[in-house]
């Protein structure tokens, strides 16, 4: 019993947007789909919702065929809720009118409206307000309440937090995630924000250029990205040339380190990926030596430019807390330690010896 996509493809004109996307979402679980803008993730959501028809492939819900290249069940007959990026609240209707929009008129209607408002942490005072009288976060929660009200089998969220500013965003996300897990509805979230994707779901799917490139539990995907690109997309990553040894260890600029996952597929030259959070810098000896070339304050941290080896070597940026920065003046030689193992990927001709990706 699940939502099932099999080989879903779609093009606009000659432009392919989705290429044979397949996955299952188990009932009551949450799936986050993450991808850069233009990766086709919104189109995927719109195909599931019924606003677009796939060019090939099938969408099934509990074994009922929802859409294929030749047939389609109209959006309003699918029982799939949808929350758009901007909420799409009807401006001419009050909160009550919006939330009650999809509920048939009956005695139970008002009760259901209050129920989903409570679920989404909306105060009952809002009932008679109009969308323009609400904050962005409140609007999104009303939109979710509205989508939940008809008790859909699946809820689709299309970047519902991206229009909110940072503070509101975390708060709204927490409230909505709580509401969704309480209601137990199957949920698919589409986002370009890795943090959001990693923290939202039971499952994570990564989509790039219209293809589903990796899916699995978020921790697994983050721990073992299927490719260097995915690794980089999911968060800051460092790549250094490495030599793999037979005993699941690799030698690189940071020394002889354990290999967590070898995804190099036997390539002759490989590189090791590690996360900046695995690095620690000390002034004692024992680690890899590096020189502090410059220091720049950034918020509550200081970004140190560390250079390894001679002038021909490589450098990387490392963040240390502000209160520790005095230990690493410019020109000082420091010692860099690595915790945990590395993931090995094949070396590509174009890649730099080391990439620092503090921000995506």
């Amino acid at each position: 019993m699940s939502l099932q996509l099999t080989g879903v493809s779609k093009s606009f004109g000659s432009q392919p947007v989705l290429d044979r996307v397949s996955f299952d979402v188990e009932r009551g679980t949450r799936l986050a789909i993450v991808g850069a803008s233009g990766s086709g993730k919104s189109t995927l959501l719109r195909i599931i919702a019924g606003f677009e028809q796939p060019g090939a492939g099938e969408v099934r819900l509990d074994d009922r065929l929802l859409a294929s290249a030749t047939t389609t069940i109209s959006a309003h007959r699918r029982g799939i809720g949808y929350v758009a990026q901007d909420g799409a609240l009807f401006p001419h209707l009050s909160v009550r009118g919006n939330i009650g929009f999809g509920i048939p008129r009956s005695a139970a209607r008002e009760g259901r409206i209050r129920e989903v408002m409570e679920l989404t942490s909306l105060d009952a005072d809002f009932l008679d307000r109009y969308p323009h009288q609400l904050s962005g976060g409140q609007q999104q929660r009303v939109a979710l309440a509205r989508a939940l009200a008809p008790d859909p089998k699946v809820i689709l969220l299309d970047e519902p937090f991206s229009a909110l500013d940072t503070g509101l965003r975390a708060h709204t996300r927490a409230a909505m995630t709580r509401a969704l897990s309480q209601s137990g509805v199957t949920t698919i979230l589409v986002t370009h924000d890795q943090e959001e994707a990693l923290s939202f779901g039971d499952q994570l799917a990564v989509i790039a250029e219209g293809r589903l490139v990796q899916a699995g539990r978020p921790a697994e995907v983050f721990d073992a990205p299927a490719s260097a690109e995915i690794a980089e997309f999911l968060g800051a990553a460092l790549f250094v040339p490495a030599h793999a040894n037979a005993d699941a260890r690799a030698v690189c600029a940071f020394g002889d380190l354990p290999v967590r996952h070898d995804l190099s597929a036997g390539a002759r030259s490989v590189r090791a990926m590690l996360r900046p959070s695995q690095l620690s810098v000390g002034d004692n000896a024992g680690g890899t030596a590096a020189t502090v070339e410059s220091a720049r304050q950034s918020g509550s941290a200081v970004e140190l430019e560390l250079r390894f080896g001679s002038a021909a070597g490589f450098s990387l940026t490392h963040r240390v807390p502000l209160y520790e920065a005095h230990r690493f003046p410019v020109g000082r030689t420091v010692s860099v330690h690595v915790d945990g193992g590395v993931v090995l990927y094949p070396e590509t001709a174009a890649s730099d010896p080391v990439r620092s990706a503090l921000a995506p």
Partner: protein
Amino acid sequence: MPAGVADRKRPPVGLVVFAVLFAAAALIPVGYVIQAAFAMGWQQLADLVFRPRVGELLTNTVLLVVLGVPCAVVLGVGGAWLVERTTLPARRLFAVLLVMPLTIPAFVASYGWASAIPSINGLGGGLLVATLAYYPLVYLPALASLRGLDPALEESARSLGMNGWQVFLRVILPQLRLAMLGGGLVVALHLLAEYGAFAFLRFETFTTAIVVAYQAGFAGPNAAALGVVLAMLCFVVLVIEAAARGRLRYSRVGSGTQLPAPRVELGRAAPFVVGALLVLATAAVAVPLANVGRWLFATDAADWQPLLNATWQTVVLSVGGAVAALVVALPIAWIAARYPGRTARTLEGAYYVASSLPAIIVALALVTFTLRVVPAMYQTVATVIAAYVLIFLPRALVSVRAGVAQIPEGFEEAARSLGVSPFMAKLRVTAPLLLPSLAAGAALVALGAANELTATLLLAPTGTRTVATGFWAAASAIDYAAAAPYALTLVLLSVPAVALMFAQVKARRSR
């Protein structure tokens, strides 16, 4: 069911078929002009066109447009700037006074002037009355543009050391170019199409001459030949406007801003400016209304009798015209707003070209078309309504299109995802949101239709008497007293639509 894999940008076929059919119908008058020119043959056409009389008409008509449009633009832009960007005293009052001439049909204003000062006539009289009647067509868009302008630009110019005048000339005026061109185009087309106002003033233009030719020979060759020349004049005006506009497009003015724009101190000039505006208001509003009022005192009870019936007929015809115009405007507005592209531009272009033709040509075309092709439609309400649609369609199109563009597609999708059928989604979400725009478009068409004279005279069923034709019958027989109740009714019928237009412009800032 068509395959749903089609390109997202392509409008639905059914909708395009509707729009193309309507556009084809809208081009009937253009077809009539072309057909008339060819049917006559070069020789006859040349005989009718290349003669001194046509030269006189051409001189009059061209002078009217060449002098009238700049006057209207100066009055309209100047007025808008004064009330919106200066410390003019009582500017709220003047903002309303300046738009009020729109409530007085040009031929009523002309009647007011002609009955007050009979010696007003010819080009001078025509220019006076027409400029005063039509400058609000520039004033309103100029006001809207000024309200939509970012005051930061003006503030920056001030900080660069420009004074109020320099800011106006070098910053504001260039940004009002679209409003001036658009308003000027509308004024030019109105000047070319006006009949009643000039007939009172014994000022002969192509339009008045076509009516005379029609009276002398029905829809005969002379009327058609003059119509060909007039249609060409209209196209020349369209082409000039398009060339002057260049690559600029009439897009929606930005959402405006909460910040008030800086106002220019009028200082010691204030009394003179107020004086000038009072003279303008007197000439454009007070003189016509005072004369209507004066003649109202001279009317007897019998003059009021036919008014109720005429008002009823006017309401039926203009509401019918407004509804029909919405029906025609909706498909093309939908395509233009939701599926912008070449199809949309071509269709819209066809509508605008078709609607630039004066009412008299539309009327001649429909008389000829119905008599020859669909005799069952001859002299029917349906034909009058069709003429109203052809003449006033742009008014509906602009409103409806802006309305559709303001409704995100996401609303319907959201509704469908809530289990509501597409039809009900349109009914429960799109329709209520579109209603204000539909109402605005309908009001503008109804206003035009209620004041329409020539097409109504030529096309209406036997026995029809609208307020405008009733006014015309009485006033052209110089029975000024009997005409006065009709004039008053025309003004009163116009007030709601003009108030609505004004409110829309005023609402810009609060959005």
